[in-house]
């Protein structure tokens, strides 16, 4: 019975998130268009694009191998699995005592599957895109993990049962500790995570692997038809999931406890409220960032991550550590 509930829940969440993340894509395109003084496409354009791509013939390059066709399916499968471990207004549906590790692992796995698909396509543009993707992945993971674990460790000191579960984020939040050091540390980490999110969804400065004018969409260069549609959907799901992590870490508050409802209705209300918060964080990290910046060279982006963002992350973590150890005061 429990297995059945979880399965139905996961399917429901998958359908909901696919819908919502595609709506966000349309909203993002319209918002950026307005910032650029354009009218922009209709709100439902991503749906039309998706349906059209699905109905189109998919061209398989002569030099490609089996992984070229398998990787879009694997990427979508990994994204759906990722949703089961994503905090969406309440704890992940497959919450375990170490689900944060699974979350990070799956997020990296999607990028790796994209790389495998690109390398298998036999296109030189895709090869370069894949190289860039791996370089970016290696640079962005370190500050993100450091920040995430520093916050979870700080929360673990508040007597939680499962410190390595994303459910913890809904039991306690980092702001309720209230000491100046945690607040400053969390603000620094918030900035780190805004940059991490932008690089995870590859916009603005970090639109390097898929650079349209340089490597002609990089890893996606040879994909077309339904394979491309699957990748697009998986990217949208990943976008939502990674934004959800930032929301759960820094803005976890739900509406249901104030409205005094519980059960399935509370979950629905929290889910909708969570989606609104995800849209807001994506607006800053994606739409705004995309409109006011251009793309960096890959060396500059790596430099930015290892010299600025990693050091910001270290500073944030050190502030939280000082707070725990009580060195000052």
């Amino acid at each position, binding site marked *: 019975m429990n297995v059945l509930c979880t399965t139905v829940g996961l399917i429901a969440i998958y359908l909901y998130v696919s819908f919502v993340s595609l709506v966000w894509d349309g909203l993002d395109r319209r918002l950026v268009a307005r*910032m*650029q*003084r*354009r009218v922009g496409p209709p709100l439902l354009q991503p749906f039309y694009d998706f349906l059209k791509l699905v109905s189109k013939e998919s061209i398989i390059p002569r030099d490609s191998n089996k992984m070229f066709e398998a990787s879009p399916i694997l990427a979508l499968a990994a994204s759906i699995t990722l949703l089961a471990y994503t905090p969406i207004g309440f704890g992940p549906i497959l919450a375990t005592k170490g689900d944060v590790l699974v979350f990070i692992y799956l997020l990296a796995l999607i990028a790796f599957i994209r790389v495998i698909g690109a390398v298998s396509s036999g296109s*030189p*543009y895709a*090869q*370069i895109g894949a*190289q860039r993707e791996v370089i970016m992945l290696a640079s962005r993971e370190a500050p993100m993990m450091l920040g995430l674990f520093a916050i979870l460790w700080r929360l673990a000191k508040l007597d939680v049962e499962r410190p390595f579960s994303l459910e913890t984020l809904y039991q306690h939040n980092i702001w309720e500790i209230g000491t100046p050091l945690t607040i400053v540390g969390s603000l620094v980490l918030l900035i780190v995570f805004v940059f991490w999110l932008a690089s995870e969804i590859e916009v603005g*400065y970090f*639109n*390097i692997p898929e*650079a*349209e*004018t*340089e*490597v*002609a969409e990089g890893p996606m260069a040879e994909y077309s038809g339904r394979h491309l549609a699957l990748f697009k959907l998986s990217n949208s799901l990943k976008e939502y999931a990674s934004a959800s992590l930032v929301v759960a870490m820094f803005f976890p508050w739900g509406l249901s406890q104030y409205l005094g409802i519980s059960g399935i209705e509370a979950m629905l209300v929290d889910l909708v409220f969570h989606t609104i918060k995800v849209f807001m964080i994506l607006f800053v990290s994606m739409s705004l960032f995309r*409109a*006011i*910046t*251009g*793309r*960096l*060279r*890959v*060396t*500059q982006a790596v430099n930015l991550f290892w010299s600025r963002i990693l050091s910001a992350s270290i500073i944030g973590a050190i502030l939280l550590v000082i707070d725990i150890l009580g060195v000052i005061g």
Partner: protein
Amino acid sequence: MNSRIEYWVKIPIGPIHPALEEPEKFIITLDGERIIHVDIKLGYNLRGLEWIAMRRNYIQLLYLVERICGICSFSHNHTYTRAVEEMAGIEVPERAEYIRAIIGELERIHSHLLNLGVVGHAIGYDTVLHLSWLARERVMDILEAIGGNRVNYAMNTIGGVRRDIEEKHKRMILEMIRYYREEVMPKVEEIFLYDPTVEARLRDAGVIPKRIALEYSAQGPTARGSGIKKDVRYNEQLGVYPELGIRPITPKEFTGVIKGDVFDRMVVRVGELWQSMEIIEKAFDQMPEDKIKTFSKDNVALAKLKKAEGAGIGRYEAPRGETIHYVRANPGTDGPAKWKAREPTFPNLFAVARALVGEQLADVPVAIASIDPCLSCTDRVAIIDSKTGKKKVLTEKDLLKASIEKTKEINPNIKAKPEAVGGICGGVRL
């Protein structure tokens, strides 16, 4: 052990690629992200213009020349007119020269705004593209109001201009200049002189040092960005430009340093936007009341040109650099024996290809966009064996041999034997 395994990859940029507006091919050899070698293949845009030109008369040729390229339609037209006027010794009324200067500068404004947007797009900064092209609409509207067309305004004719600039046009243009000065230019300067992304991407990218620019004979903003004071309107004291206070713009006036990178080329373009507006205002102040063309009708001009002899060369500083047109008369007929155009993209393209060696792949689109390439102007000759469809590559020696043969055929008395100098270009790939 100093043997190092090298993983070189050859990447074709083009003939069709998102970074390029027109078909051309760059074969780039890469070591990781670093560029080892750049090879250029041209000839994807050949339309046989010179062949068509030999079958037209001088007036019809005006419209053909205008359609070489979409952006410098006025420049080519103007240069061709100057060449024909020099050949036939036709005097142009002063008012016509001022009108030509005004339209030429309006075209420069629209071409430079276009290029600012294209460079923004090349670095993925699409907001710059959309906003600068929005600003460009204003000058396009003015050109449409004057010439009746957004791109091919057909203003020139042999011995003058075809349309006068009236009082209402003058009001519109001055209003446009006010709009650009107050609303557009501060934003353009903010982006291209101070924006961190733009500075990070354009500074030290695609550096063309002064020596390379001289050796490859770079033209226009590409040369001026490297610190060469080269502007035909200034160097040749062309037409009425000396009275309009023309001077070559170098990035030194804005940033104080000359590095010859993409950033400097864009700074030159921003400076020329300011200069063009000043020139238009001065031209309106100094413009005399006069007739606008020497010949009242085209057939009168053709009758005069029928008697013309010799050859003429026209030079003009198009937005992309110096354009040269050569016209040789065919006495007794109303068309030229030979018409040839040389546009600035050809030398600039090789200069930028040389500059790209040692840089990163990410710099390729922006460096190519920064010379504002116009391939439809460039491609005019291709030697193809019609049976096999193979293209020939002519080296310097082959070209020299062909020209010696031709010279002997025309004048057998010439005894000089020039030798190949073996310059850096090595040859011309067709």
